[in-house]
């Protein structure tokens, strides 16, 4: 029996920042194993989670991501020995900062997915996609992106229309 494809009202943009050795390979494994998961996720590959700058997370939210996944090697498995340990602290701190500024942390998922965990990749991505789908779009950053200081605000409808076309 083939399940009817469900169409959703809202398809979130999900970005995954992953390390090449573990999670990227794990996602490859999910592919070679022909596992199925929602197509919302876009993968940005890094050598190591240690390379992932918090700015990238912020930037992705600003540029329209509704949910973000950061994923790398399990502790002790880092190809570069300690990159993920540094990343773990960095993100432990950064998520607290985001939370304090008012970002709902349900939109930011961290995980360890090894090269052997194709199934876990699918599970993490699916779960995050479904969660964000239920939460709806990340309006805060999108609204902010369109906001102007009062003096630079464009009041006429035509200009506002033109303006909305800008990223």
């Amino acid at each position, binding site marked *: 029996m083939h399940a009817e494809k469900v169409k959703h009202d809202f398809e979130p943009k999900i970005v995954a920042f992953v390390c090449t050795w573990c999670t990227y390979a794990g996602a490859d494994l999910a592919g070679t194993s022909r596992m199925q998961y929602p*197509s919302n996720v876009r993968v940005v590959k890094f050598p190591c989670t*240690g390379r992932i700058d918090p700015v990238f997370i912020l930037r992705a939210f600003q540029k329209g991501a509704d949910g973000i996944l950061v994923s790398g090697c399990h502790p002790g498995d*880092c190809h570069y020995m300690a990159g993920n340990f540094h990343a773990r602290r960095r993100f432990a701190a950064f998520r607290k900062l985001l939370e304090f500024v008012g970002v709902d942390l349900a939109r930011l998922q961290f995980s360890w997915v090894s090269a052997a965990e194709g199934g876990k990749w699918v599970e993490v991505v699916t779960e995050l996609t479904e969660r964000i789908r239920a939460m709806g779009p990340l309006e805060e950053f999108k609204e902010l992106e369109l906001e102007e200081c009062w003096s630079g605000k464009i009041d006429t409808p035509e200009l506002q229309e033109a303006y909305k076309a800008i990223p």
Partner: protein
Amino acid sequence: MSRIGVFVCHCGENISRTVDVEKVAAAAARLSGVAYATDYKYMCSDPGQGLLKKAVAEHRLDGIVVAACSPRMHEKTFRNAAKSAGLNPFLCEMANIREHCSWVHEDREEATEKAISIVTMLVERVKKNRKLVPITVPITKRSLVIGGGIAGIQAALDIADAGHEVVLVEREPSIGGHMAQLSETFPTLDCSQCIMTPKMVDVANHPNIRLYTYSEIENVEGYIGNFQVTVRKKARSVDMDKCTGCGVCTAKCPQKKIPNSFDRDLGMRPAIYVPFPQAVPNTPVIDRANCTYFKTGKCGVCQKVCGPGAVDYEQQDELVVEPVGAIVVATGFELYDIGPKPAGSPYEGYGEFGYGTIPDVIDGLTFERLASASGPTGGKIVRPSDGKEPKQVVFIQCVGSRAREKGISYCSKICCMYTAKHTMLYHHKVHDGQAYVFFMDARTPGKNYDEFWRRSIEEEEAVYIRGMVSRLYQKGDKVVVMGSDVLVGVQVEIEADLVVLATAVQARTGADSLAQKLGISYDKYNFYSEAHAKLKPVECATAGIYLAGACQGPKDIPDTVSQASAAAAKVMTLFAKAELEREPIVAKVNERNCVACFYCKKVCPYGAVEEKEIRDRNGNLIRVVAYVNPGVCGGCGTCQATCPSKSVELDGYTDEQVIAMIDAL
């Protein structure tokens, strides 16, 4: 304006079945900076690569995106193609629309949309790619081999025979490893010692091999071609240069009742001892924990009787630093302890099998020592409890292996064969004895292996019972084996004189800590991980480190020797070049902006960051900045993420490249 070429691969139907590749190519063609876009059946094929090369020339492309499989699969292929088309290979990127798209999504529309967006991101990335030139580093053409079992011996001899120096480090007082403990070997029943000892002697005599026994790896620094290895030579208490190996000390040692672990504690040895008669080197070592002199300060017999004055109670551990260019790890295995669950072990024990409490329940390696002509019983098979010859022996396979409920799910690979061998050896030595084997199934894929196994049943009369044993218990002087025969569907009870358990092969205790010193990865069972299960079975992901033997996973002797020679060949391949070329994915410091806070140095896992002084023409210090040694840098990029001003940048993963991808979302 960039001139990017986009090549969308059908991968037969692997991609085109779910992704509308033509639509992807058409969408790519509309992207800003894309000069050419097309799709093709098999991009990795010769004509596919030809297409790419032709397009580079015809359309004056300055960047390439191949939308196909995972870069882990074919990035090298296409970068080489780009290179032969005259383009810097690092201007070529792959958009993974197979593993990350066509294979994981069913809806054609969604998959196509996703593929377009993946290609878009990669196009934006390639625009920001820079030409990179491979980095060359000198190679120290000496090799370290860790472990002196058959794997280490084979690798060391091969490398040394090729004319390169080898440093062989063995933890035990003698090389030889587990193979030296075996009686005979399957499937030919060669005497293990007969084929092993000549190789051990070759090692000792080889002019290119520096042998450190009773030694361990203390620390490893550096990188491929340039490792600095610190070896701890444990205090042997015997001066190796002076000792002649006459054996008087071991004969005179008053302390003689120490169980010999080489004989699986069946035989006894003195406190100053060589583990077995054919040991290499034939130099005794004092077991300080059991030596009366070291315990009480009294005795000193060995020193008194030693003619050359080789016994040295004051000897200290010594640290030696060896520069090497490559490392072969051949640390072997140990057997699963099937006693009650040991504290802290991730594995469940086999308390129900009474190991350790019922004396006549032994493991396979102990049986090897019993069957060995040079073993504690001189090759006579007797029961540990009373020395009687056992008339009924039950062999149980898969003890620990393939037992998910006990924590190990892998197959130990060698047990089927050695159990068959054991039944033969037993039958050869105890003609009126009967061997029973409880087994799940027999795994005999190997040259002459199945024939060998059949012979144990058909000619040597072993009775194979398909089923598992539930319990063992002592009844009088018998060990009752309760099991089931699943073929017949009955409960079986055998009153055995001796039970031999084919226990699982597992990684060495401490394998993980050695891995951490080496910077190599290991799996959840602590077996070392190869870089690729099929295509790089000998290499570690850490460049310059290779694997041989059972430290990577259970292996029999032929496989071990093959892998050891393969590892040696890899080392020789490395040493065949004058200099090493490495991928230029390394961090570089922008000295103009660096403010020398040295956070990069604090977080670098490789110690690749140095403090560099910038001086004026007169030699006056102007300022200090960070410098990344490209030979040492591993390319993780932790420095860049940490640097507040991004004055250090990882080539291949620059902020510009990453942000271009994010902005293309």
